[in-house]
């Protein structure tokens, strides 16, 4: 490698650090944006549901979602599903990692915010407030709209999304 190239690389590194620095200074909550949140409306009489969303991390370092809370349910936990030979296993998780400049996708059949003991039945048009807390103690309030499973699926069936679905199999 020539000296010229090396100096360009060093310069690029310094530039990169300078650009990233202001972002690094912010809290996890400031670096993470929440996209397309929804909470699933469950059949009458059922009191457990899942809230789903995409967490995007604009930061140059990894962050972790460590807690979710909501006044809409007695208990709120972070859960995931694993598929072991066709057997679906739901388990609580300690945290959900959101990689640097990456995202964590909370979706049906996978990671989700588990809401246990809903205090009232959810209807279309309702919103629940979920507070997300990150590893540095910073937190973020998210307004999560309630969605019927049928509506949820229609949205999932949108062209372009179908492609993703096929890849799952």
């Amino acid at each position, binding site marked *: 490698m020539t000296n010229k190239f090396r100096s360009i690389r060093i310069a690029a590194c310094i530039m990169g650090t300078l650009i990233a620095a202001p972002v690094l200074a912010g809290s996890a909550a400031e670096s993470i944006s929440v996209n397309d949140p929804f909470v699933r409306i469950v059949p009458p009489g059922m009191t457990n549901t*899942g809230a789903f969303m995409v967490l995007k991390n604009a930061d140059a370092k990894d962050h972790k979602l460590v807690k979710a809370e909501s006044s809409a349910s007695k208990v709120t936990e972070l859960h995931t599903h694993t598929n072991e030979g066709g057997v*679906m296993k739901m388990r609580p998780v300690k945290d959900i990692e959101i990689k640097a400049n990456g995202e964590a996708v909370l979706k*049906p059949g996978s990671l989700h915010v*588990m809401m246990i003991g809903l205090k009232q039945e959810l209807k279309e048009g309702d919103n629940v407030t979920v507070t997300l807390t990150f590893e540095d103690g910073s937190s973020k309030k998210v307004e999560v709209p309630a969605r019927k499973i049928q509506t949820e699926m229609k949205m999932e069936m949108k062209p372009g999304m179908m492609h993703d679905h096929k890849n799952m199999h």
Partner: protein
Amino acid sequence: MKKITIGIMVALALLLFWVLLMRQPAGEHGQPGPAETRGGDFTLRSTNGPVALHDLKGKVVLLYFGYTFCPDICPTSLGFTSQALAALDKTELDKVQMLFVTVDPARDTLEKLKSYTAYFHPGIIGLSGTPEEIAKVAKLYGVDYAKQNTGSAGGYVVDHSAYTYVIAPDGSLFKSLDHGTPPAQVIEAIHAAMKKS
């Protein structure tokens, strides 16, 4: 003398019965068999009384094992299947029966199963039985399920196979659909199973 003859005959009959019982190959008691030998008749209970698979002959039966506390997997499976049912016309729908068998009979009452399944499609029948009866049906279809205490405040969860079993009108297992099979493919499988009769 007559008494002794009867005694011998009874003893012989018992012996024959015992031999027949023991003749079952030992291998049948372990793991479920390969896919092609899975399936079989069963009877479980619904809010409207017993439901037997043989009573549904002539219909395509969609069989799913789950539980109502399941907030995610079961609703997704039932949601997709009910969309498929909703897309069938009346004559086709008359030839299809969806069954939801609970793997959590301790918490799922028949009434709870009914309101749960009706939310997805009014035609779905929720079924339960004793833990032994359910275990027997699950084994027939190769369904694995196990209660797990995960430390969640929501109480125990039940790990379970999330396939939808498509049973042909003759009562034989036609196909297993993976979790999350889109409605279009569920409809395709229903039509293919109908042709099998």
